[in-house]
């Protein structure tokens, strides 16, 4: 039984979103420390953007009964 394409894509996107956090935080020249509206890019990403995207993707996959 192979994993349906939608789920496979969702898992890949979730893992890429997850890997983005340490890469943003630990990359040379610290791009995660750049401030946007007073908050670091790293915390905008890990505290808002990635969580909302990941939740939306997961809900989109879970509410579809077909796969």
């Amino acid at each position, binding site marked *: *039984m*192979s*994993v*349906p394409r939608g*789920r496979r894509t*969702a*898992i890949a996107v*979730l*893992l890429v*979103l*997850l*890997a983005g*956090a*340490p890469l943003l*935080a*630990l*990359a*040379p020249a*610290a791009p*995660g*420390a750049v401030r946007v*509206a*007073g*908050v*670091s890019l*790293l*915390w905008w*990403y*890990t*505290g808002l953007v*990635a*969580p*909302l995207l*990941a*939740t939306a*993707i*997961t*809900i989109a*996959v*879970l*509410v*579809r*009964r077909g*796969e």
Partner: protein
Amino acid sequence: MTALAAAAVWLQPVLLATLALRVAAGDADAPWLALGALIAPLVALVAPPRRASASNPVAAAATAAAVTLVLAADFMVAADAATLLGAAPWLGVALAAALSLLVPLLPGARRVSAPALAIAAGALLLPLVSVALTTGTAPWTAWSRGGLRPSLTFPETSGWVRDGERFARPARLTFAEGQRVTTLTAGVYRVVERDAAEPTVREWRLAAGETLTLRPGDELSVEAGARLRFEAGRRVPGAPASGIAWADAPARSPSMLPAAFGALATLVGGALALVPAPRRGPPAAAGPLVLLAATAAAVGWGVYAAATAPDLALGGSLLAPILSLPLRALGPRTGAPLAVLALVALVALLLTAVVALRARLAAAAGSAPTRWAAAVSLAAALTAAPLDPWRVLALGLGVAAAAGTPSLVAGGRAVGLVGSIVGVAVFVALAAMPSVDPAMGSWLEPLARYPALVAMPLGWAAARALSAMTGRGDATQSIVRK
């Protein structure tokens, strides 16, 4: 199983409390741990269900060990709560263990658990919303204010300054500036003075009310349960040097990458092994939403604690940011009911978690009540050891990942068994390395902290290789769970 019930396995009080404390303390790894705590269970919810052939005795035993370790980590939080409330730690453990034994056996516990989880996550968010509205401070404004502090000092209103507070666990405090510390419990206090080329170690036997004068660079060792009072306006020992250091954690460097990926691999692998696959359909949206609310609440508690009271992380108590923040931010009249609400939410999370963990144990190793009783008893006994709750949780998730995930890619039960054996053997060898060789190379340290980083892929590789050799593998099959 509903997505909410599946999420209950993941939303352990120890996970949320650790996140809050790490964010409050400005730990370098807090941002990716916070994201991992959310995305790991989401990956598990999206992954397809496991076939019956994916289970094996080694994976079942590892699941039982994981459930025990996760319970032990939760009980350590209960011990912290008891210490914060002025009771003996064992009392918190005994109460949590008794509830864990009884509640899953109540009729209807599983039915009530899912809505209770949603209410508990909402209740954990409510005090934060109240703090935000009362102080007129949005979370991003609180973060920004915390990050602009010139130094992290004890405010006049701090409990550490007025009546003194207790240390929930042993601590080593490094003082950035001179300070007089008053001991409120008698005991032996060890000070390492670093003002000369060779450090000088002094041990002071002090009675309650006596004072220690510490100089910049001195290091004070404090036993769990010791109660100390500090001076207002002085820097919080062990805290980041400034708001910028809290926000940007100077310790962050590319050399942290192995440990970062180790932690994330442990979280994702542990979630795949422990979080069951839910039923699909529109109601399943509740699972991810509750996970988002709970992890957002944990991060929010940490951010507001850092901005309002940077000394809350001092005692090492996982619950200090959650239980003390409302009192500090809003005063006792408004803050006390909110602190009680947060405590009730955490107790509810513990109860929904133990109901889910018992179901997980029953699915893996049988539903005999004696097995659950043994897991709870062993978990309670483990709290007697001086262990870090996060380490215990990571070991639990890691062993489940090392044993459980190789069988997910295996083409049959025997192949899965071999993968699980290899995964567990590598996990145990790496986890035991610091005990066997305390002088091991520093490059091995991330692997010893998060053995699943290596144990999982080696287990997978063994299962894949055997599948290929026996012709029972399916190259396109991956991540199937029950």
